[in-house]
């Protein structure tokens, strides 16, 4: 009950931002639904169209946001806004589809609203987004809004070639609707989460011809695993948005290559597929790797289908063996071992359930199951496959957080296929026992619901909440009290997320990471364990003209007792229990 109340309270607290973001998403869905209607007529049910639109909405919004930015840059933001409003109005008319089916639309939004309330419990007492990524997202969005405001391209943006989608959409919403960037980031994340499970319903419903299996899959994808909700603890908003558009690409690929070409003309599906892939790459460049893997796995499936049954069985065993080897290797790699631990610790019972259901998935949907396992195997390989990127050096094709985020998707699909397989097994073995079939479905749904009630964490995790209210007070004090050109030392640590990764990548480990984006102050990252009590370090801080040291309330923040013990070098300038600022003194 508390979750519901907290969710409603958070919704009320962010009412204006929620309304604006929901209306924007509804426009995106309206366009996608209209296209589906025009391309496929009435071959898709209303719920299916809405389910696909729930994945495809970022595409039109993103293209509109980019257009708005370009026009604003060339002319002014006012002209950009006028053109945008014109496009929104005209496109809403041009792409209007058939009449909405009221009951299905109502059901869709009822489920969506329920999910929205639950997901908003996450925002209880959240005043800044979690972890260090969020600060960077804030900074980029702020740079874009400044470009809107001043009409001059921020130098910052010239180097920003990745993940345009989330930042441009958020900046547009923030600037033109005068919403705080922080609110837009926080709310947008939860709203994206709300719509994520719907497209999986479409995929499994069409693959298994079972509505219940579709709903089961959506339930698993929404609340069965710690992902994708846990992404919000990591502040990985572009990755979250990419999940939506990936689902859209999957739906379009399904219609293009698995749908009946007479019902779903391939050329239209390919057009939408192309749009989806383009939007997807703009939202998160790493999705290219994912699509390459899907392509290779699909080719592997085509070859596999042509083989003798004995070879097919051997190939399945080979793929399973490969996955086992990858698991062993990833567990021995310090950067990758959290990949499975995340699921084993937080989603143990769901993994058991999906594991059991996978047996039925293999029995009745062998090809799709083989495809999914191939994808898992290739993703595992990508974790160890090096490639060179000019800016970042040698990296692995995929990193651990991205794979961890994505895994809930194949797991949910396998669960849905297995659900349908189990029901079919009962139907085949005991055709007269319809009650048993219903009972089995109820049990499976019940198990997931029980898991949600007892295991699922609707709230944000303390692991990643860098900023406390003491930090906010410290920020206000810094903003008002220290010289504008002062440099503040903040604690950092190396980033370990891939088997191959340049060791120089440094990330903030406490609220200090927010000082630069929020206050526009110079900050210097330093390893959190740096020997601040050594005279060499002190003199180098002086040489680098570091004026202040920020100590947040996280376990990896700088050690305060070390600084407090050296009053001749470090003087306490601001001190609250969970946020402290020391001034570097004694420089000669």
């Amino acid at each position, binding site marked *: 009950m508390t979750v519901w109340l907290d969710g409603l309270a958070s919704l*009320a607290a962010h009412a204006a931002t929620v309304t604006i973001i929901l209306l924007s998403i509804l426009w995106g869905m309206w366009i996608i639904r209209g296209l589906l209607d025009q391309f496929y007529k009435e071959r898709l049910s209303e719920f299916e169209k809405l389910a696909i639109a729930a994945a495809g909405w970022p595409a039109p919004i993103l293209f509109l946001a980019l257009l708005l930015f370009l026009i604003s840059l060339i002319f002014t933001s006012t002209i950009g806004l006028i053109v945008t409003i014109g496009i929104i109005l005209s496109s809403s008319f041009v792409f*209007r589809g058939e009449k*909405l089916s*009221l009951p299905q639309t109502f059901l869709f939004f009822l489920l969506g609203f329920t999910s929205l309330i639950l997901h908003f419990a996450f925002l209880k007492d959240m*005043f*800044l987004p979690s972890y*260090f990524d969020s600060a*960077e*997202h804030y*900074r980029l969005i702020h*740079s874009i809004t*400044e470009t809107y405001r001043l009409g001059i391209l921020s130098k*910052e943006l010239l*180097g920003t070639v990745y*993940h345009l989608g989330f*930042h441009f959409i958020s900046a547009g919403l923030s600037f033109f609707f005068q919403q705080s960037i922080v609110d837009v980031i926080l709310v947008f994340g939860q709203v994206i989460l709300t719509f994520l499970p719907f497209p999986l319903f479409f995929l499994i419903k069409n693959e298994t011809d079972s509505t219940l299996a579709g709903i089961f899959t959506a339930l698993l994808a929404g609340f069965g695993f710690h992902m994708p909700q846990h992404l919000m603890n*990591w502040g990985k908003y572009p990755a979250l948005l990419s999940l939506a558009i990936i689902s859209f690409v999957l739906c379009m690929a399904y219609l293009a290559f698995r749908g009946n070409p007479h019902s779903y003309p391939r050329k239209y599906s390919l057009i939408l597929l192309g749009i989806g892939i383009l939007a997807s790459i703009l939202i998160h460049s*790493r999705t290219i790797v994912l699509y390459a893997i899907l392509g290779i796995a699909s080719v592997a499936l085509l070859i596999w289908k042509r083989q003798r049954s004995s070879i097919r069985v051997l190939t399945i065993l080979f793929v399973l063996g490969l996955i086992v080897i990858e698991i062993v290797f990833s567990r021995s790699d310090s*950067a990758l071992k959290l990949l499975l631990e995340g699921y084993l610790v937080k989603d143990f019972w769901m993994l058991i359930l999906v594991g059991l259901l996978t047996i039925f998935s293999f029995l009745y949907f062998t090809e799709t199951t083989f495809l999914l396992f191939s994808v898992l195997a290739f993703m595992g390989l990508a974790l160890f496959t090096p490639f060179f990127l000019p800016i970042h050096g040698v990296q692995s094709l995929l990193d*651990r957080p991205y794979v*961890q985020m994505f895994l809930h998707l194949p797991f949910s699909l396998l669960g849905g296929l297995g659900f349908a397989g189990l029901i079919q097994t009962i139907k085949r073995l005991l055709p007269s026992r319809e009650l048993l079939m219903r009972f089995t479905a109820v049990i499976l749904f019940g198990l997931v619901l029980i898991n949600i009630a007892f295991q699922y964490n609707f709230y944000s995790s303390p*692991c990643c909440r860098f900023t406390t*209210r*003491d930090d906010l*007070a410290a920020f*206000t*004090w810094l903003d*008002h009290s220290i010289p*504008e*050109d002062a*440099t503040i030392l903040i604690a950092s*640590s*190396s980033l*370990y*997320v891939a088997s191959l990764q*340049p*060791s*120089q*990548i*440094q990330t903030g480990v406490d609220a200090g990471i927010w000082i630069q984006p929020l206050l526009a102050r110079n900050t*210097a*990252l*330093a390893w959190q*364990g740096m020997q601040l009590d050594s005279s*060499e*370090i002190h003199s*180098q801080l002086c040489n*680098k003209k*570091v*004026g202040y040291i920020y100590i947040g309330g996280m376990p*990896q923040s700088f050690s305060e007792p070390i600084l*407090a013990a050296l009053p001749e070098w470090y*003087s306490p*300038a601001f*001190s609250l*229990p969970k946020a402290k600022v020391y*001034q570097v*003194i*004694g*420089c000669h």
Partner: protein
Amino acid sequence: MLKKFTQPKYLLILVAGIIVISSLAWFAVRLNRLQERSGESGKLVSFDYCAEELTKLCVVSFGRDADDNTIVNLFVPEDEFPIFYLKVTRATGESVYECDKNDEVKTSVYCTGDPLNLEERFDIQIVSVKDDQILAQGRFTLTAFLITGPTADVQTPQTTPEVASSTQTESTPTVSSGTSVASGDLATATATQSNNDLATPTTSVAVNQTATSVAVIRATPTATSDSYPSYP
């Protein structure tokens, strides 16, 4: 009869109607709550230390600044209080604490004023800047400053700090590929902070057209049990 309501325009009107009604209901509830708080037979709002739930005015923590002044960190529900200052009444007399609100998170306000002593008992009144009207009051005992270490004993620095004009940074958005710097050594600042979900680089932000930067000072950049893991 209901069929015509399945048309998009009616649905849009329906959705808009729901939004408007919900908003009105929300505002009504908020207004009612405000009236309850301010109007209940003229009673003042009372406040205390914050509990786990931050729903009403409360004190988050006490602290100190460089001049040994006391900092009072407050949670203030958004839009429920005008600009205010604190009037602290102690056995020795009254003193005024000036308050600043966080620009980004409006519920965060901190106030600074004369030093308070441990175990001291005092009253805090929240007073409107506009008309000096008392908005809220609370009685506190400063049981702890919650400051770790010997910071409270440290005197205000005598040495004027050397304040930098700017940090040394490279504007090129690249990750440096040099070898690790030995422990305790500060390398030339290089802009690097990035990760997979982030776009490139973190150099010079044109926020308010003031160049700011993030530099990296390297010292022992090796994995340790403390620094691991990233993305728990």
